Every structure is written in structure tokens, then in C-alpha cells.
């Protein structure tokens, strides 16, 4: 339970950074922190105490493997989620570069004032 709460503190700090800061790169950093915290939470849900990794080695008993292995389903979903996070970061970086080239500033309130 304390592990879950500490993870949600990181998530909350990420959302605070996304809302309250005005620099564009700080907003990107906030989104990256949110992604890390959510992926970690999903893996924390599937952990079994004194478990072993869900990879079979030759000569291992399958019944004992099913009793001691950790959950493979959240791991499969988090694997794709991490690589999707990288694609999203690339798209956000492209937007930021273009905005900086046009408005010469990273500050969100200045960009909102200038028109065209």
C-alpha cells in the first residue's frame, strides 16, 4: 500500500508540472513523468511476493512455474505502452521546435498573446 501511494505521489507531481508551469519543455517533462508513473503502477499490480520472471528455462516444472511466476499480462501491455510513449515524445518535440522557430520563445503565455 505504501508502494502504491508513493507511485501516485509521482503521478500527482507530474500533473502539477503539466498544469502550473508555463514553459513548454516543462510541460513535456510533466507528461513524461506521468507516463513513467503509470507504467510502474501497472507492473506493481502484477507482482507476486518472491515470484520469478515469466520466462521458462529448459528443465523447469510447469506446475511450479504457474504457482510462482508473476503476471505476464500487464507486462505485455506495458511493453507496447513504453514504445508508444517514445512516439508521442517525438511528436511533441516536433511541435516545440516549430513553435520556437516561429515565435522565438518557449513561454506559453507569450505565444498565446501573439496572433499570426
Amino acid at each position: 500500500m505504501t508502494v502504491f501511494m508513493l507511485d501516485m505521489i509521482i503521478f500527482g507531481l507530474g500533473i502539477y508540472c503539466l498544469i502550473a508551469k508555463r514553459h513548454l519543455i516543462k510541460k513535456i517533462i510533466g507528461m513524461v513523468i506521468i507516463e513513467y508513473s503509470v507504467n510502474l503502477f501497472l507492473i506493481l499490480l502484477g507482482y507476486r511476493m518472491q515470484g520469478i520472471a515469466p520466462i521458462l528455462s529448459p528443465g523447469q516444472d510447469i506446475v511450479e512455474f504457474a504457482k510462482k511466476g508473476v503476471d505476464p499480462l500487464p507486462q505485455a501491455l506495458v511493453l507496447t505502452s513504453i514504445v508508444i510513449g517514445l512516439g508521442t515524445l517525438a511528436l511533441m518535440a516536433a511541435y516545440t521546435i516549430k513553435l520556437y522557430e516561429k515565435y522565438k520563445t518557449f513561454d506559453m503565455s507569450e505565444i498565446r498573446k501573439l496572433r499570426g
Partner: protein
Amino acid sequence: MKKAEIERLVHDESIGMTLIVKTVARIMIAMILLYGFYIVLYGHLTPGGGFAGGVILAIAYTLMMLAFSRHIALAKLNDFWASMFDNLGMLAFVILGYIGLNVGIFLYNFLGKGTPFSIVSAGFIPLANISIGIKVGACLYAIFIGLSIYGRLVLREEE
């Protein structure tokens, strides 16, 4: 660009990074590519798989672009071919899915199971891993080209 011109640009000291970085990068790029292929190919036996291996392959080409200049990296794999490998990898994965429609199930595992713990096993999982590895690797290298080149007005018709 011909081989002689690439050699001349690699040994030129004014472009790219210093000599120590270039020498170490030359050794490390081969090892990173080999490690990436190993992780993709043995994805059904050891931890790894298509996604992790694909990103490792993209990192090898990114190291080439950072240590030497971008001309040399583009001479080895230019932006047209990077985008083309991206599309071909995606197409291969979808075609693997359509073959299963003979039986009536999309993405059906149509090859046999084989002996466990050997490379040729687990149906079409190695083939799907290879196609996804090529796709993700080419795609991330292409976005790195885009971030570092397309921002300035340097185009192919100028060179």
C-alpha cells in the same frame, strides 16, 4: 556518394567529433548492431522481442549520425530508404495476418510449433518479431533524421 569520398569525409578532422570518439564509435556500432539482431531473433526464448531490438538498431544508426556527420549517416541509409523500410515492415506484419484468413482467423499462428527451446519454434513469432524490429528501428531513425535535418532548408536538390 562513392567509397573514396566517404573515406575522405571520415578521416576529415573538421567535421564530426574528435578522433577518439570516431575510433570508439567505429567499434561500437558493429557491436550494437549485432546485439540488436540477437535480441530481435531470440525474442521467443529470452527477454527482448521486436520492440526492444528495434530501438537498439535505431540507436546504432543514431550513434553514427552523432559521431560522424550527417552526410555519412545519410550515405549509409538515406531518408528515402529509412521510410521505405518502415513501410515494408508494417506491410509484412499485415500480410502475415492475412495469411491466417485461410482458416478464418486474422493473425492465426499457421506454422507448426516445433521443438521447444530452439530457434525454429513457436510458429510465426520469430517472423513477426523480425518484421516489427525492422519497422520500429527504421521509424525511429527516420524521426531522428527529421528532427536534425528538416528544420533547416537543406534539401536534396541543393547537394
